[in-house]
């Protein structure tokens, strides 16, 4: 509440400063070339001097004030009878500050109720100090900025330098995100590997995650069945569906379809890629899975399960079709026209040209596209969560229920549990494996595509 108020006031001061500085600069104008920068740039320069330091001060205050508030509360006589035991005291303090913010809430601990009034007073006092500091900085910055409005001052250059800094910071967010992913995954995985050896994790075949730490923990965290389930669903079943359908769709669209047909069919195919995965998951669980089960029963399987690798894999494959199709489309289009013309001129039919010339020439690109498709399929979550099942087993029977890495991550991290149990930590280890594998697939695929493009350029 007070935060928004402070920001609004600072912004208001900034706007006022903008007009003041522009007015001053306009008054300095005496003719062509008398000012080094247009008056509005002086305004922007002033606005930056008011807003940026004030917001920085407010942010820094937000970082250090909780510690100061805590110290002040503990120094208050009302806090004297608090238990000395840290955890208990923290719980009461947290409740008191909750009460201070929301007076209607019911107090769980009577001591917190008494403290609430004190806490509110102290918190308000410190927020006021912060607001005053921010306002002071805004005025100081503004005063400094105002003295800089002179005829010869290069306000535009300064403002543009600030603009470039902002652009630079924005582009560094991408690196920060990547670093954040790597650091958080590696850190939590490191904690996990303190209790379970990486070798047990990567080669064990028994998966039964549980809480509690003991020497036998490694025996229950063997992730091989998860890797197998992931590969079987994402790289085998889904690809058996997606590669032929996607490839033939691409061939038909690029080689046989008329311009009008292509104009309608291609966007229609793209719709498949735009449907949210949760919808596919629901469809797989509700419609495809019962069909698969009935089919399995008709084939003579004994009580086939409702959740099957086949249902999840087929639906996932359909989801990937447009992706495979557009990758194949690109790589077929990249084959030089001369090769196609040469084949046709020798009397080969269109399909012979496609099968003997175009597809072999486009093969590296298609393989790279398939690798990207696999990396998508193994990272796909909702379809397997809703249709593949939770049983970790090593089986090559597509009618069995099977589990995947992504399913287990969801399973391990939803629900209420403490954050440092081996169960939760193992989810991050699985996440790291997933991240490394998809990254490797992508890097290799992009390299193949690049090399292959150069070969024909």
């Amino acid at each position, binding site marked *: 509440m007070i935060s928004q108020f402070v920001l609004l006031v600072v912004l208001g001061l900034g706007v006022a400063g903008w007009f003041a500085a522009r007015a001053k600069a306009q008054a300095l104008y005496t003719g062509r070339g008398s000012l080094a920068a247009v008056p509005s740039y002086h305004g922007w320069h002033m606005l930056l001097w008011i807003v940026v330091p004030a917001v920085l001060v407010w942010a820094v205050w937000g970082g250090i004030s909780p510690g100061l508030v805590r110290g002040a509360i503990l120094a208050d006589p009302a806090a004297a009878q608090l238990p000395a035991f840290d955890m208990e005291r923290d719980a009461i303090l947290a409740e008191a500050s909750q009460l201070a913010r929301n007076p209607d809430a019911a107090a769980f601990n009577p001591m917190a109720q008494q403290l609430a009034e004190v806490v509110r007073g102290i918190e308000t006092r410190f927020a006021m100090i912060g607001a005053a500091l921010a306002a002071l900085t805004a005025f100081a910055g503004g005063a400094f900025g105002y003295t800089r409005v002179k005829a010869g001052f290069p306000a535009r250059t300064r403002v543009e330098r600030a603009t470039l800094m*902002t*652009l630079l910071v924005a*582009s560094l967010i991408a690196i920060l995100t990547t670093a954040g*992913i790597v650091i958080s995954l590696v850190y939590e995985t490191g904690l996990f590997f303190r209790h379970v050896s990486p070798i047990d994790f990567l080669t064990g075949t028994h998966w039964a995650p549980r809480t509690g730490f003991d020497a036998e923990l490694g025996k229950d965290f063997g992730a091989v069945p998860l890797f197998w389930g992931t590969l079987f669903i994402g790289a085998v079943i889904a690809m058996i569906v997606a590669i032929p359908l996607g490839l033939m769709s691409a061939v038909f669209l690029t080689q046989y379809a008329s311009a009008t047909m292509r104009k309608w069919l291609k966007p229609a195919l793209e719709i498949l890629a735009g449907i*949210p995965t949760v919808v596919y998951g629901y469809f797989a669980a509700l419609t495809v899975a019962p069909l698969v089960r009935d089919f399995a029963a008709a084939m003579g399987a004994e009580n086939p399960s409702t959740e099957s690798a086949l249902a999840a894999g087929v639906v996932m494959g359909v989801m990937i079709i447009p992706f495979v199709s557009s990758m194949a489309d690109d790589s077929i289009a990249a084959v030089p026209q001369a090769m196609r013309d040469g084949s046709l001129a020798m009397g080969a039919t*269109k399909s012979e040209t496609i099968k003997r010339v175009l597809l072999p020439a486009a093969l590296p690109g298609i393989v790279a596209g398939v690798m990207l498709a696999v*990396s998508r399929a193994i990272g796909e979550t909702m379809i397997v*969560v809703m249709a593949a099942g939770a049983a970790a087993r090593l089986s090559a029977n597509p009618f069995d229920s099977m589990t995947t890495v*992504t399913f287990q991550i969801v399973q391990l991290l939803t629900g209420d549990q403490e954050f440092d149990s081996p169960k939760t930590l193992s989810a991050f280890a699985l996440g790291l494996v997933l991240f490394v594998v998809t990254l490797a697939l992508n890097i290799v695929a992009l390299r193949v595509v690049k090399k292959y493009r150069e070969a024909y350029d």
Partner: protein
Amino acid sequence: MINSSWQAPEMQRRLARRHAAERRFKALGLVAIATSLLFLAFLLFTMLRQGLGGIDWAFLTGSDSTDATVAGVWGAAKGSILTMGVTLALSFPLGVLAAVYLEEFAPKGRRWVEWVEVSINNLAAVPSIIFGLLGLAVFINVMHLPRSSPLVGGMTLALMTMPVIVISGRNAIKAVPPSIRDAALAVGASPVQAVFHHVLPLALPGILTGTIIGMARALGETAPLLMIGMRAFVATPPGGITDPASVMPMQIFLWSDEIDQAFVQNTSAAIIVLLVLLMAMNGLAIYLRNKFETRW
């Protein structure tokens, strides 16, 4: 010795065989694309048949409930709107600014610029659930932001959407011909002025198209939000971005888990609402592209 004249019966048979193979191959292509589209039609038809009856005013304005007959989709829709608001407010400015920097101002051939480019391309291919793990580890466990809130959900999705906006933004900026830039510079504009006053406005339709497509993807995303706990049972629409909330795909997921058969209709109805929204967004993107696309 085969008679090699093209009128010889052997040659005729051979030709017929080759032409038959040609027709078979073409039919195979048609079958492939028809199969894919039939699957799509089957999916849409199933959802419409199950869900169309469940869409009425009460469903569109109600919130989640344990009773399937009064449960509605508005609570989740409002959560989606708030989350998308946060995502857009973060990823659009950051994405556009990063695209401008990388395309116009970044020093060429520097090591760290390459790192930025590589990480943007890789982030666009990282599975969405990994972003959820990042959000859980950083936003919730380190920064202690409120769990299940549109704020955390929006921030997580913004990290996921930003690479999409950067990539489409760079392509749109690249498509603006250098003559525009040169003309601005020639009449005395500074490089920053040339970019912000002339190049960026011309690239904006392309950037917007990419942004809408990225937002549509974020709107349908479930897995990362599952990680940060946005599966709260929300009986009243969230009031602000720090309240516990659910989003539309999450509502679909939660309802699909209900044992009560009456929720099947609700789930399908919510799917119809979500698909209509997504198609409207994609339609808008296509409209913008067709309307403002300039061939230079």
